[in-house]
């Protein structure tokens, strides 16, 4: 009997280097996908839980309808919100409201817009259109990026020492007035506006600038008549986002003296004031549970204010986009 040499084993399957782990791989993919999806949903879930619980809490202040009576509840909700807007601050939870806070916040909004928008847009235009590339520009740019990450309470400290007290120089000190509050908030949102405006300016095609300059426009004429209008939707969006950040800030206002109890509306920027989020904070930390309902109503007011600002930003952007394309 002659032994024939055994044929070489087929390669592949038993190869030490070939471990397909098919089942594992087939399982891991979908599992990971589901995990990612669930993680993404947490955000949305949190958002709805947040809104739901706040609305539920507000409705506790206006009982009388079953939960499934949607229209009745919505009407109650808005009636209660309107009531709360009309009332001043009070130590009685049934008479407490946000009138002075809303007025103060609107004052702040207006003043911050006046201070922060020109300076923010100006700084961005300087960086994008005027500053020569080099060390100066790099320093300013890095500085703005770092400012954007400074905690808001540090701005509060700055405002306290610089605007409210002016390092102890009585003549320059603004005191806990609307001036101090709005200047502090303006510094706080400046980086947001600058960065948004810069991004908007970068989307303007260079050919537009070259065409303007070639026709003999000065640099400012080019910026004013061509670059800024073209970048306006982006600038507006960024500006409104910055302003909505200012409206929601609480910590710096607590530092620069937005007072707890203000019963008269400020008549001018040098009067004392309070703001909506500050009042929410004051109510929320009360031990009496009925104040929680008032605080919830305030939060709803704040969110409505922010949402309408953001909606305005979107509408402006869309309208402009259509005009320019037609």
């Amino acid at each position, binding site marked *: 009997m002659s032994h024939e040499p055994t044929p070489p084993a087929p390669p592949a399957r038993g190869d030490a280097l070939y471990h397909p782990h098919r089942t594992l791989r087939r399982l891991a993919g979908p599992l990971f996908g589901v995990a*990612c999806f669930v*993680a993404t949903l947490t955000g949305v879930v949190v958002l709805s839980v947040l809104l739901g619980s*706040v609305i539920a809490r507000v409705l506790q202040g206006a009982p009388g309808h079953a939960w499934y009576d949607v229209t009745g509840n919505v009407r109650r909700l808005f009636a209660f919100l309107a009531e709360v807007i009309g009332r001043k601050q009070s130590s009685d939870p049934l008479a407490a409201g946000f009138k002075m806070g809303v007025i103060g916040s609107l004052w702040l909004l207006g003043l911050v817009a006046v201070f922060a928008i020109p300076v923010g847009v100006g700084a961005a235009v300087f960086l994008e259109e005027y500053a020569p590339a080099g060390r100066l520009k790099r320093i300013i740019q890095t500085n703005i990026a770092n400012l954007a990450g400074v*905690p*808001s309470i540090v701005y509060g400290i700055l405002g306290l020492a610089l605007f409210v007290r002016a390092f102890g120089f009585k003549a320059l000190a603004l005191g806990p007035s609307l001036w101090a509050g709005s200047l502090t908030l303006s*510094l706080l949102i400046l980086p947001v506006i600058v960065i948004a405006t810069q991004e908007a300016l970068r989307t303007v095609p260079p050919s537009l600038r070259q065409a303007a300059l070639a026709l003999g426009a000065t640099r400012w004429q080019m910026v004013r008549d061509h670059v800024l209008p073209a970048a306006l939707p982006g600038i507006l969006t960024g500006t409104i986002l910055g302003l909505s950040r200012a409206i929601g800030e609480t910590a710096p206002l607590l530092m620069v003296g937005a007072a707890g109890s203000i019963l008269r509306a400020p008549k001018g920027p040098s009067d004392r004031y309070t703001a909506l989020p500050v009042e929410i904070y004051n109510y929320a930390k009360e031990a009496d549970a009925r104040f929680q309902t008032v605080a919830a109503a305030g*939060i709803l007011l704040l*969110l409505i204010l922010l949402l309408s600002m953001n909606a305005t930003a979107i509408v402006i952007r869309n309208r402009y986009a259509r005009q320019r394309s037609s």
Partner: protein
Amino acid sequence: MTTAPTTTPAAPPEDPHWAGPSRFLALQEHAVTAFLFVCAAITVLTTAGIVLVLSVETLEFFHVSKVGVFDFLFGTVLRPEGDPPLFGVLPLAWGTFVVAAGSSVIALPIGLLSAIYLSEYAPRRLRAVLKPALELLAGIPTIVYGYLALLLVTPVLKAVFEPLGLQVETFNALSACVVVGVMIIPMVSSLSEDVLSAVPRGLREAAYGLGATKFEVSTRVVLPAGLSGVVASFILAVSRAIGETMAVVLAAGMRPQITLNPLTQIETMTTYIVAVTGGEASYGSPKYLSLFAVGMSLFAVTLTLNVLSGLVLRRYREVYH
């Protein structure tokens, strides 16, 4: 930057339509340039102002209170009302660390997974809905999150832990960790998502061509390629958690202590600053000035983290052509 020429066109010598260079326009040009420069300078002055205010008042604090820098940085007891008053910053640093660590445990994995989902898995239309929703979450004022901690998180914690025989205080560190964690999720996810989406398609397609599954492409190709951005977003989120004020004020309470029990009150640096301004401390007293020293520490920590984040992003970025 534009590549536009900087010289104004010279006038042709004998052109009757050319009125000559306008002095008004030249003046306007100078004025506008100066104004814009001042605007840009204000941003630099803000930083200078912050540094100046913090350092001057911090020196004043050490001078007035006679507290040594070493005692401040490594003191484990904070008792500004005591006799003698003790100003150890460590209890505040510990509270801040607990909140930052706890919220990172929640936010970093969730944020990263949602970034991967948005950039790799999500169908385009779902993504168009989810991304704005996450951005909306980022725009909610922090006071709202603080209120949510009181209204929702703490009662839930009480319902969970009290049957187990654990005492849950109304203000506790855990609820602060939860709400701050939720708050910084959008930060992690949107920054990471930007980086992951920017990884070129060719890289993914090459991996698919070699037989990789979607899971493998996401975790072994896309994630390593975008790692610098992901790490940078983590650092930024931690820095944000450290500087967070209102959510912590309403959730975590105001008792400076070094404890491992997350169900009791703690105090963070930010909370202390708010507590001092809200309190009765008179201007110039050691307690009042200690606010600036704590603020200085806070500013130093967050600035370091932000700079670090920028460095990571620049230094370790994979550049594709």
